[in-house]
């Protein structure tokens, strides 16, 4: 296991470099003028422009700048935002807890409801519950998340007052609706995944064996079917946790939650290159780590998978 993890981490290094390089390149191609943006319509004093240009290495060739950036990254320095003049690590420290709260709600929501719905549907294929799960998940998948977000904000929030409308002033309950909206699509996928998996495993030979052993139905389903069916679900959940932690541009935007996605979108709009790169580097890191965790999870859950 140890050797497998080390090898995987070594494989992650070039991917990380490649991805950040592309992001860095794209950001330099944004073509805007971040220094001008600081001043809006006013002219930028020459001396300030010169200082900032030197500070952010804006005149250096691309690879030199990338090297400055990358070597900083290795020391845990994600760079500094031009627009806000603060270290990106600081911005992250503010934004991430917000994102994590939304992600936590989303994750719990999709895990509990998704798995239960999927298992029930899979056990009784063709039943009312099954059809209900199939149709409702299809709709959730088909409706774009911003429509879902807007509509639920308008009705559940504004009109009926069941949830806080936006912002984070209401403590924990502020995160409930955004979390459920964010988790809804994954919930639908998890329910369908669990359903297909349970239905397939119910037909497996080893389930026939389990019945022939005279095990009670609760044990056949609860241990033999579920233990196998949940492997794909758990790995999906692992990957999803990674993407949830990366923030949600749309959901955080609609509900006005100052999380990672929101910050990133703001930085993009003001063409704050260093901030964008800093945020994205971290997101890539989160993505890579979650991919690694998923692989390890797979191997832990399924003894047939061996580390080679």
């Amino acid at each position, binding site marked *: 296991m140890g050797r497998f993890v080390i090898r995987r981490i070594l494989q992650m290094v070039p991917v990380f470099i490649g991805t950040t390089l592309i992001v860095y390149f794209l950001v330099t191609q944004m073509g805007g003028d971040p220094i001008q943006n600081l001043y809006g319509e006013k002219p930028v004093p020459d001396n300030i422009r010169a200082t900032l240009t030197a500070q952010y290495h804006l005149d250096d060739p691309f690879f030199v700048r990338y090297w400055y950036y990358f070597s900083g990254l290795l020391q845990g320095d994600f760079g500094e935002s031009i627009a806000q003049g603060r270290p990106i690590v600081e911005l992250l420290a503010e934004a991430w807890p917000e994102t994590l709260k939304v992600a936590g709600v989303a994750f719990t929501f999709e895990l509990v409801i998704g798995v239960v719905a999927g298992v029930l549907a899979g056990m009784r294929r063709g039943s009312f519950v099954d059809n209900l799960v199939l149709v409702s998940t299809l709709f959730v998948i088909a409706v774009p998340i911003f429509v879902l977000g807007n509509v639920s904000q308008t009705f559940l929030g504004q009109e009926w007052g069941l949830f806080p409308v936006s912002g984070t002033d209401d403590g924990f309950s502020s995160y409930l609706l955004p979390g459920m909206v964010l988790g809804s699509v994954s919930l639908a996928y998890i329910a369908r995944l669990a359903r297909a998996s349970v239905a397939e495993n119910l037909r497996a030979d080893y389930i026939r*064996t389990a019945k*022939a052993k*005279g*095990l*009670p139905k609760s044990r056949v389903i609860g241990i033999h079917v579920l233990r196998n069916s949940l492997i794909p679900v758990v790995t999906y959940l692992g990957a999803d946790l990674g993407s949830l932690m990366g923030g949600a541009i749309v959901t955080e935007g609609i509900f006005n939650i100052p999380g990672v996605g929101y910050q990133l979108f703001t930085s993009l709009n003001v063409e704050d290159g260093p901030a964008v790169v800093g945020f994205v580097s971290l997101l890539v890191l989160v993505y890579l780590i979650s991919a690694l965790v998923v692989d390890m999870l797979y191997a832990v859950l399924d*003894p*047939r998978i061996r580390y080679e």
Partner: protein
Amino acid sequence: MTTIDKTASVPAPRDGATHDGPLLDVRDLHVEFRTREGVAKAVNGVSYSVNAGETLAVLGESGSGKSVTAQAIMGILDTPPGFVTKGEILFRGQDMLKMSEEEHRKVRGSKIAMIFQDALSSLNPVLSVGYQLGEMFRVHQGLSKKEAKVKAIELMDRVKIPAAAARVNDYPHQFSGGMRQRIMIAMALALEPDLIIADEPTTALDVTVQAQVMDLLAELQREFNMGLILITHDLGVVADVADKIAVMYAGRIVEQAPVHEIYKRPAHPYTKGLLASIPRLDQKGQELYAIKGLPPNLLKIPSGCAFNPRCPKADDVCRTDVPVLVPITEQDGTDLPGRRSACHFWKETIHG
């Protein structure tokens, strides 16, 4: 394959002649599968019985209903689509089809156990073999996890798996095919059942391993004086271990006989065809016989004798009348104990 010495328990084949009746008595069993395409009649009136210590071989092609019968006995038919529509399954005189689901479940595994063909797919891939063996004791005898593991190791020892204690936590895929089948056998034996149903237990194995596994099974059967139903399509395996044979075709028994007699004098053209299609050393170089045609479509079983489209002896009567499984006799009318045939022309077949 070594021949198994049966002197220890020579149960003369008899049809429920003893005072307390046979261990298992299947009577006129009918099973059908209701599919999208229609109703497939998988079992159409099967009757057979097994006594303690006796081995019944059920022979037939795929789709002949031999496995479905076994699943009906175990009560593990997938319902839907499978339904038992008629018949009785008497175990020690009690009809299992009339038992409650809970009663039936308690019989499964503890009194009647089953061994499946493909041990790799029949064992749960994500649970250790120790867990799967121990489960029998935990569920049926209420042992603790720890006690169950000790029992599991004992079982593995008993079926001669080397280094049992070290391998108890291994997973099915880490064992060889023969070892996996031993684990299946160990699982079936765990609670020392009265009857074991082995559904093609050696089909997936190498020939050399087949012999070992069959020997083991026969040895354990003798040790515990268990009844054994051996489902197979392999006439070679049958000759060595079985006491009596039931040949199935299209969901019916077409011939029943004590094992050695059937080889000498088959009383049904289908059995005859099966025997003729075994390669034999003394007929080297000759073309091998093959029964022409395919097994019947169970959605549309031919009228009359189901075998008639493939039968070299088929006559008009075979296309209209279903032949009944009747006791058959010598030419002079003396009884042939235990022998039955469901052929309009059994006389010609056995004596001709």
